[in-house]
Structures are given as C-alpha cells and as structure tokens.
C-alpha cells in the first residue's frame, strides 16, 4: 500500500503542479488560440436582462447560455451581441471587449413590442398619491370621491363613506410619506379649515380630526415613516412637533429634526423614477411617459410608453415593476408593466456603467 500511496501522491502532485498554473491562467482570461497555438488574453461579457432567459448571439453564433450569461474567451476588440426574446424588440450592440476585463451589461432592459397597459378605474381622478405599503390614493376635490387602491388588487374603495361628516368636504392638500400607513388631509369642511389624520392600516380607515393642533396653515407637514406619533408642521419661521397621541404641540429646534423625514404634498410632483437597479430613467416629458434605458455602447434610445395627464403624479411600484398614472384623455387610472422582473442586484455594477443622473433630478 505504501508504494502505491507514494506513486499516487507523486502523480497527484504532478497533476496539481501542471493544472494549477493552467487554471490560474484560465481565471485571468488567458486561453490558447487553437489556430495559432499562441496564448491570447481574453475578456468576457456578463449579460443579465430584464426579463431573464433571453437568447444570446455573439458574432452571429448562438450561445448555449440564456441570460443571465457569462460569455467567456472573447478576444479583445468589438463583438456583435444580439439578444432575442419573443414579444420583445431585439437588443443588439457592438460591445467592446478588453483583455482580462469583464464588460458588464447588467439588467439590460428588453423593450416589449407593445407595452402591457391595463385600465384600473372606470372614473377619472384629479391626482394620485402613494401611501403605505402598496397603497395608492386617487384623489378628487370632494372628499367622498377619494378612493384607495391596493396596487393592482381590483377596484378602489372610497376613503370616506357617503354618510361621513367629512364626505362633502373639499380637499385642499394631501400629505403622505413613503411607506407610512398614514396620510394627512387638509380640507375645507363646512367653510372650516380642517386637518384630518387618516390611518390606512385600519379597515375601514380611521380618521381623526387634529385641526386643533394647528395654530395656522403650515407651509409643509412631514413625518418619519417609522414614527407613528409625531408629525412636524413647518411654518414660515418655526417648526412645531405635534404629538398626535398626546395631542401635544411643542416648538422644535429646526436644526435637530429627525433624519428620514419625508413627505409628499399634493403640490409637489412625482414624475421621474430611476428604476431597474438605478440604470434606467422613467420620466414624463410634457404628457408623454418615456423610458431611457441604460446605453453604454451605442446612441441613446428613448421609448414612449403612454400619455399621462399633466401635472399629476405617477407612481412606480418597485415590487411589481408597475407604473400607475392617470390617462391624459380620460383621467382614468392606468397601469403599465415596465419591469417584468425584479432587477438582479447581486452584481456590483461599475459606476462607469451607470447612467449619470444629475443630483437634482434623482431626488424623486
């Protein structure tokens, strides 16, 4: 056994000594050119698409991998890559390859031949607001006509019943905070200026009149979505902390406001989104909703999706990849499926491959 062990040991050691440098060289992208028998430096392309499972062609040859795919052993220079999928436009580019480097085409958005658009409401609205998890508030000047939609889950429900004392009030402004299950309605009810704090977690939603806590009409109201008790009212000179539970109002040092305060008032517009792992811009220009997919290796392309009512909000639901908007002609609520899949996030994409969005624009 001992001699056998020695022989096998030396064989294995020899195999290791031969294979190890070969594998390291292979890892670094060095391969032997079968025609010239010379060692050549190669690069690779990583492609992932949204949606995945698309067919890939490299220089006209079908790759055995579907997306996401790692196409190895590509010699430096330009390679023509085409991605095909039924129901989507072909994606084709000349992609530059650099030796020992990986060219990353992460979350390449495939553009459908026809955008899947669905009508959700049979009536028109004045505007829409996101609130809480997957909740959309479609507003109308009269409070009883405000509806709540749980994104894509059937028709909306009225926020106020017709018998509610607030039903005939007129909406002035609506405040909501991302992922917060609360909204604040500023309304005129029987000629009185009112502030209504609405808890959307309850079914039916619980409405509380907190008008007494406001001495004047604030310019802005904000709250932290993790804090269910305190809201901050911004006046021209001062900021007040309002504790809704204790009904207490106190002056707040404006320099010591909690981080993460974020609200959207009905007088601020939301119509730009960075989607698809922040490499695609979804924006409304005029009344046209457009998409600018990431473009690194060719001229920029823009695709029209639909037309939206001007000066209204749009809402992009990241979980489902759906865009909610009010139709330009009818004011009805519509949804367009922009991202069929949640983008792959595990590959860190070099900053050079991201779309450069100016800071002001990215503050959605």
């Amino acid at each position, binding site marked *: *056994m001992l001699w056998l*062990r020695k022989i096998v040991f030396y064989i*294995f050691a020899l195999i290791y000594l031969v294979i190890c440098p070969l594998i390291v060289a292979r*890892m670094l992208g060095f391969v032997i050119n079968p025609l010239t028998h010379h060692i050549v430096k190669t690069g690779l392309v990583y492609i992932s698409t949204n949606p995945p499972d698309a067919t890939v062609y490299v220089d006209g040859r079908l790759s055995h991998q579907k997306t996401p795919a790692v196409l190895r052993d590509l010699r430096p220079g330009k390679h023509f890559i085409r991605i095909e999928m039924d129901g989507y436009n072909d994606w084709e580019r000349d992609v530059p390859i650099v030796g020992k480097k990986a060219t990353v085409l992460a979350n390449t958005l495939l553009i459908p031949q026809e955008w899947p658009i669905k009508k959700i409401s049979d009536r028109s609205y004045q505007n829409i607001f996101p609130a809480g998890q997957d909740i959309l508030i479609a507003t109308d000047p009269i409070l009883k006509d405000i509806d709540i939609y749980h994104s894509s889950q059937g028709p909306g429900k009225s926020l106020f019943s017709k018998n509610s004392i607030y039903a005939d009030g007129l909406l002035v402004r609506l405040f909501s905070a991302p992922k917060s299950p609360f909204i604040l309605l500023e309304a005129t009810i029987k000629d009185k200026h009112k502030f209504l704090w609405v808890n959307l977690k309850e079914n039916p939603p619980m409405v509380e009149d907190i008008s007494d806590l406001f001495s004047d009409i604030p310019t802005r109201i904000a709250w932290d979505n993790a804090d269910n008790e305190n809201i901050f009212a911004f006046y021209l000179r001062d900021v007040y902390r309002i504790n809704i539970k204790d009904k207490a109002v106190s002056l707040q040092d404006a320099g010591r406001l909690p981080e993460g305060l974020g609200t959207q008032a009905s007088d601020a517009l939301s119509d730009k989104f960075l989607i698809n792992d922040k490499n695609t811009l979804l924006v409304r220009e005029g009344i046209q909703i457009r998409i600018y997919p990431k473009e690194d290796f060719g001229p920029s392309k823009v695709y029209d999706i639909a037309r939206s009512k001007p000066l209204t909000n749009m809402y992009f639901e990241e979980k489902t990849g759906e865009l909610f908007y009010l139709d330009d002609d009818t004011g009805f609520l519509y949804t367009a499926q922009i991202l069929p899949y949640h983008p792959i996030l595990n590959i*860190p994409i070099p900053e050079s491959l991201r779309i450069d969005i100016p800071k002001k624009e990215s503050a959605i």
Partner: protein
Amino acid sequence: MKFHYSKENLKPRQAKLQRSLEILPGACSWSVLLGLIFLSIFFPFTAAILIAAFYLSWIMRILYSTLFLLLSYLQMNIERNTDWVLRIHGIDNLPVYLKEVTPKRFGRHWRQRVSHKIHLRQLNKLSASGILPPASKDLYHLVIFPVIKEGRDILEPAIDAISRQNFHLKQTVVIFALEERAALPIQNTVYELEKKYKDVFFDCFTVVHPAVVPGEARVKGANVTCAAKQAAVFFQNRQIPFENVIISCFDADTVVSLNYFACLTYHFMVSPNRHRASFQPIPVYHNNIWHVPGFARVVETGSSFYQLIEATNPEKLVTFSSHSMSFKALVDVDYWPVDMISDDSAIFWKSYIHYDGQYQVVPMYVTLSMDVASAHNWWQTAYSVYKQKQRWAWGVENFPIVMRAFLRSKKIPLYEKLRLGFKLFEGNLSWATSGFILSIIGWLPVIFARREFASSVVYYNVPDIANTIFALGFFAICITIILSLSILPKTKIRYRWLLKLGHAFEWLMVPFILVVFSAMPALHAQTRLMFGKYLEFWVTDKKRIPQK
C-alpha cells in the same frame, strides 16, 4: 537519544525555544486566516488567485484521500474473516508453516487470496529478518482502563468484550487505573468488576492513582503511567520478561472486536521490529452512534475515516486514542508523559525520539469501538464534541517538543526530520484553517469586490471554478456516504433504512462541521498554546441508552 519529553523543568534557553515553538502554529494559522481576509478586502485579485490554488489543492487532497479511504476500507473487508489464531500458531512454527502455505492457492474468494498474499509477504519478511518472536503461549496482554467518572454502563461492556476474545484469556491481565479522586460509586463499581472478572483473566486488579503527585498534571497519562509501573512490578515478580508483554491502553469506553487480541498478537509476532512499534487499530464510534445528534455522527464517522486513510501510510502514521505497543518499549521510554494531555500521540513521539527515529506505527485492520461524546441535550452534546475535538487538537502541544528534539538529535536523518516536522506542522495548520477558508473566507473576494475587481475576468471565473471544485468534492462526499452507511452498525429499530437515509443527508452538514467541530476547536487549541494558556484535561461526557 535521551530526551526530556516535557515542556516543564527546561533550562532557560530551551524554555525560550519551547515558548517560541509553542507560538509558531497558532501564529501561522492566524496569519493565514487574517492575511487572506486582508487580501480579500484590499487585494481581492491576489486573494482570489490564492484561494483558487487552495481550492484546487484541497480537491486533489480530497480525491487522493477518498481513493485511499476506499482501498483501506477494502483491506479492512479483506481481513474481516481472517483466522488470526491459525496464523499465530503458524508463526510459532515458522519454517514448517512457510513451507506449508507458500505453494498453496489459498481460498476461493479474491479477498482470501489477497489476504493470503499479504500474509505470505509478511511471513517472508519475518523469516528474512531472522528476528523470530516469542512463542504465542509465552505472550501476555496487559490492558489498562483509566477510570475517573465512567460508570458500570460504560466499563462493563468494555471488559466484557475482552472476556469474549478468541485469544487465550489466561494470558491477559486487566488493570483498572482508578483515580483516587473518582466518586465513591465509581470506585465501588470498579472493585465489583475487578472481583467479577478476576478469575476470567490471568489477573484483574485495580491500581489507585493518588490525587496529587508532585511533577504530575491532572492528565490521563499520569494515571496510566502509575498503573503501568505497578504492572511492571507484577510481571517482574512472576519473572515474565517485558519483551513478552503487549500493552493496550484503552479509553474506558473501548469495546474491542472479537478478534482484536488475536489480530494484535499476530501483528506483534509478524513484525520484526515489534519492540519498536506501536500497533494502531481503526477506531470507530459505534457504541452509541444511533443515540447521538446527526452532526456528532458525521463528526465521528469522519474521524474513523481519517484513521482509515492514515492507516495506508504507516510512514507518517501517529498513534491515536486506544492503541497497543510493546511493554518493553513503554518501559524503555519511561512510560507516558505525565504532564501532557495528548498522551496517545505523545507516546509515539516520545518513543520515536528515544529510538532515534527507529520507531513506527503498524496499522491493524481491525476495529475497536468507542463512544461518541454525548450529553443530555443537543447543546450539551455539541459542547462536549467541541471540547473533545479541542482536546484532540491540543496534540499540537507535541509540536514544540518534537521540534526541540529534532534540533538536538544527530541520529535522526535530516530528511526524516523535515518530512515528519512538515507533516506535524502542516497538519495542524491545515486543521485550523482549511474549514474557514473553504466555508467562509473563500467567498470574501467576491463579497468585498470593489469596482475594479468586479469588472475583471477573475471575478466571474472564481465562482465558476469553485463550483466545479465543489461538484468534485460532492462526488467524494457521495463515496464517503456510501462507505459510512456500510460501516455503521446495524440497529434493531423499525424503518432502519429511513434512519440510514437520514444519516446520508446528515453529510450535507459537512461545511458547518468543518468550521464548528474541526477548524474552530483546532484554532482555539493553537491560540491557547500561543498565549501559554495550557489546556487542562477534560473528561468527555459519555452517555449510553440501555439496550432492552
């Protein structure tokens, strides 16, 4: 070479050297781990290449070990039905026996033929050496069981297994090495067993080891040394030469297989250098294997397999756990170290140094079964297994002493010193680091990848290579699972196949086990040695469920 095999009572210069060598294994293990983490964060490219090279070496080692595990398993099967007693009687009359058996085509089955061929080779070697053994009727077995907290449920099956041996019981002496500090019920049990088995063997008696002896640590080696010294007096009084005595130092839970002593006698007789050899059986942990949590089952099956693999390489084999050796050698080297925890491996190194490298371990393809460390609940068992592995890993305490001896010895060839020194060092280093690198650190370059690395070819190729290597590793694990299932003892419960299927799936815990019950205790032990926080002997918990 006369060498003080201890870390105690050294001259200042030797003490300094000892301390430096104690620091070396832990420092190297930590350097490897922290170095790789540092490289993974700041130089992921270099780290990825080093890790890929390590992965490759690891898979080569796994495939190599699997091959010899298979061969060793085959050899164990080959020798399963060997009639050792017949062979022993043959060696008693070697010239006639050789003539008888040489021309014979022995047995119908290929296993018998292979076994016979190995037997013939051993006989020819013995005959050529001219160093014939004492007659089997003059050979005595001395068995020492150290006892401190083991009860009747543990001790009786062990001694009962010896009483059922197919070798002359009247040539066997059993000694209970009882610690004075053992609890009274344990002491009573020992004396009851002594009484019960006194007439079964040549003799059976108890030697009480005093609780405090100057110069001794509270370790097993001190206890069994005390017993062995008493045994020496016993044999001297009866004018039995030490050359005719084979000593087996067993853990209290050791249950030997039926033909253990016959097999041991054969190997002792057939080895020309029988007084410069230890005899290492294959330890299996079957006594309570179906009553312990799955992870413990996998850990101990892995330990058995490691010994099976090591058995194929006697040149590098070191004694482990329960084993046997010539009593003359034991007396010559002045018994076990009385201040070291790893007495089982230390006695090999002590003998190796004493005989200037002319000492070896003879593997025996016969099993002896022990208990898997077990306690009353899952966490306690996990703690016991961890502590036991830490104690095994404490074998690293031999490294500084052996290295000091190697530096001093002029008679041990340089090549041997380098070969064994490297094995000892590399074995400890790889024990403490491999599990971490394979299960955790190997992924760090990808996790900590920064932009420049994330856009390199290496970033995308490393996972691919790792996956291929792990697929090959899985193939090796599949073979291990099959062998594990075939080696496990039969259980008398219903749906046995379901239990075995469950055990097969338990092997999926290997990455977790590699870290928690292998690398971590080894690193813990090396770190303690590095900081001079010497381990105290910790008696492993053993628990058996009574058989109905």
